[in-house]
């Protein structure tokens, strides 16, 4: 009989565990906490009721009509002059000789549907270390995607060359508006002019910084770029009867951004700036407030049946339905909608509060059409 002392057994266990892959000698985490009490349906309904304004009522046909009357500018497809944009010095330049993807001439998929893909024009080689510029646009511009990318050759900029951008937020905003309107086909009527902002409101401009810490532990950073984000914002006439608050503009599908510094624009994107048609929705099909509240509550509980919801965000606006091919291209039904963003985490948390919170954190956002959909208005795009 083999007599094994405890230390010997421990050695065998230890080395065996290395061989067969059983973990050793690291403290375990505390057991996962008990599941939180999930939100009840009544609680979620109460949360949604509190978040929605009285503007959304049991008869929403008037609200739907007002949203469908939102002032649309000309679609990107009518505004964008690609050749002119490519020749502009801010993009490729007047004497540039770009190449085009061979896919550019294929406007339709093999099944005969309008291609959702973009066409790319390039100046330089995408791969490799050289300077490069790229301009792309939806082959069918009703999709509303346009993008510009630019880079230096490797090694052009050294860390010591990084300079703070001198553009003011106001100048950056004007530069961004000019770029997306003049070169990317965005209708100016669908952008918020700075003079529309109420007193105290700030422009959607941020500094993109690059920073480091040296060997002595000294921090340094350079605000190297300005980033401007431009939401698609359509003028409407909406006032909430209970609060008297007005909505002079509402968000619609589409967003743009421009990244720039004193050397010009480096990146710009127009995304999902769909060609919208307001004619495919019947206001008589408007959902009631209670129908909408129940639909939103069901969706929230589908996503979050685990933790209590901390707060909801709400946007009333216009989303896009499924695209419809037309003789001239492609068009999307314009669908009045409510967008709900749900968070299980408060807006601001101290570091200590974050540590206590643990990881169950991602928010989620979903759009809900304000009208019952018919075959004509079609299902909404995934939001």
């Amino acid at each position, binding site marked *: 009989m083999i007599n094994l002392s405890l230390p010997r057994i421990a050695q065998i266990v230890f080395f065996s565990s290395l061989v067969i892959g059983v*973990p050793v000698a690291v403290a375990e985490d505390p057991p996962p906490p008990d599941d939180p009490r999930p939100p009840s349906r009544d609680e979620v309904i109460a949360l949604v009721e509190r978040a929605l*304004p009285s*503007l959304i009522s049991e008869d929403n046909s008037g609200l739907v009509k007002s949203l469908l009357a939102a002032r649309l500018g000309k679609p990107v497809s*009518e505004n964008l002059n690609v050749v002119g944009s490519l020749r502009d010095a801010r993009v490729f330049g007047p004497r540039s000789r770009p190449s085009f993807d061979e896919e550019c001439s294929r406007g339709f998929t093999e099944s005969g549907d309008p291609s959702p893909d973009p066409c790319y024009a390039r100046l330089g080689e995408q791969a490799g270390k050289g300077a490069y510029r790229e301009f792309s646009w939806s082959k069918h511009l009703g999709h509303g995607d346009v993008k510009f990318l630019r880079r230096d050759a490797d090694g052009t900029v050294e860390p010591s060359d990084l300079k703070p951008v001198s553009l003011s937020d106001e100048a950056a905003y004007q530069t961004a508006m000019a770029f997306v309107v003049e070169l990317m086909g965005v209708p100016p009527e669908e952008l918020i002019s700075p003079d529309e902002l109420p007193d105290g409101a700030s422009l959607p401009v941020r500094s993109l910084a690059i920073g480091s810490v040296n060997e002595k532990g000294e921090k340094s950073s350079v605000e190297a770029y300005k980033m401007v984000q431009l939401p698609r914002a359509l003028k409407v006439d909406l006032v909430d009867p209970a609060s008297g608050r007005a909505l002079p503009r509402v*968000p619609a599908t589409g967003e743009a*951004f421009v990244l720039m510094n004193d050397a010009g624009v480096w990146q710009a994107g127009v995304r999902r700036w769909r060609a919208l048609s307001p004619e495919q929705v019947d206001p008589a099909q408007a959902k009631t407030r209670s129908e909408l509240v129940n639909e939103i509550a069901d969706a929230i509980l589908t*996503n979050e*049946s685990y933790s209590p919801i901390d707060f909801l*965000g709400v946007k009333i606006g216009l989303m896009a339905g499924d695209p419809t091919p037309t003789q001239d291209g492609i068009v999307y039904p314009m669908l009045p909608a409510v967008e709900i963003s749900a968070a299980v985490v408060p807006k601001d948390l101290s570091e200590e509060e974050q540590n206590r919170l643990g990881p169950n954190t*991602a928010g989620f956002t979903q759009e809900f059409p304000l009208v019952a959909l018919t075959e004509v208005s079609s299902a909404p795009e995934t939001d």
Partner: protein
Amino acid sequence: MTRKGNRNALLSAIGTSVVLTTLTAAVPSVAMEVKVFAIGDFVPSSSGGCGGGDRGHWPDMVDAWYDHMAVHGHTKDGQYTDGSMTIQRFCDPDWIGGCLDHQYADEADATMIATHGGDNGDHWVGTMRYSYAGHCGLDGGGNAHDMHLGDYDLEFLHFSSCYSADDDNLNPAGNRGVREAMWDPVDSPVNGRFAHVVTGNHGVMYIRGKYDDDYEDFAHDAHSVGIAYSWVTNSYHSNAEGCEWYDPFNWFGTCQDICPVAVSQGQSDARAFNGIHYERYNNVYSDPSNNNYWYWMGYLGCDPVGEFGFNP
């Protein structure tokens, strides 16, 4: 000009214009192996799991990145969704036996991890579906030793996860912050293998259908401009979430942002800078030989849910 007229003019320009030289298709330089790990269906503790609220669309969102990497000629090398996701796929065998990062997260050139995340002291912690060796949370960076990637193969680590690059965790006292997940203090100094760039978020991020485009565009643009730039432009959303109904454009300050951050590292100031400024999926530099130098990129003041403004 009518739409049709505009389109015809454009096709004519593409076919015959003086600006046209050649027709080319984008060709990748060197194909990389890419992997994606995503949880959308979290398992309650009462069912033997690690908890967490379901986010069913999350795997689809990051799949947009994975699919588009293949469009650029890279190799789809593993798509892991839900299933038996534990820390085993991400943890380093120098930490505990049975860790298999060299078969999963570190056995790729670019890896994306999508799961709930939190701030655990000086580092990120991600929720797994099930516990392994008593660990439900994957602790990465800071003073945690679970996750040391880059010593086997990985160059680019992407988090689709809240708090994965918090400002206070970039450079905490006493360690390399998020960079601790980008090397292995045991193996990297010996084999000279380090990850190059990590991307993540300051504070809370959101899941939604239209953010699929962010991930697809991130993959595309990171072949044309630096990976860091591509991440911070495509994943940034100002005033996007949490707005009161009367304030859709944040005129009254009720909205919150989504705040992407990128970090590079290198053996010299120049190498680290080149990583943050130039490195792309089709312009991959050799591994740094250590990680004493580093750079971050992010939006100052960017104010997400669950955190204060970005101020590293």
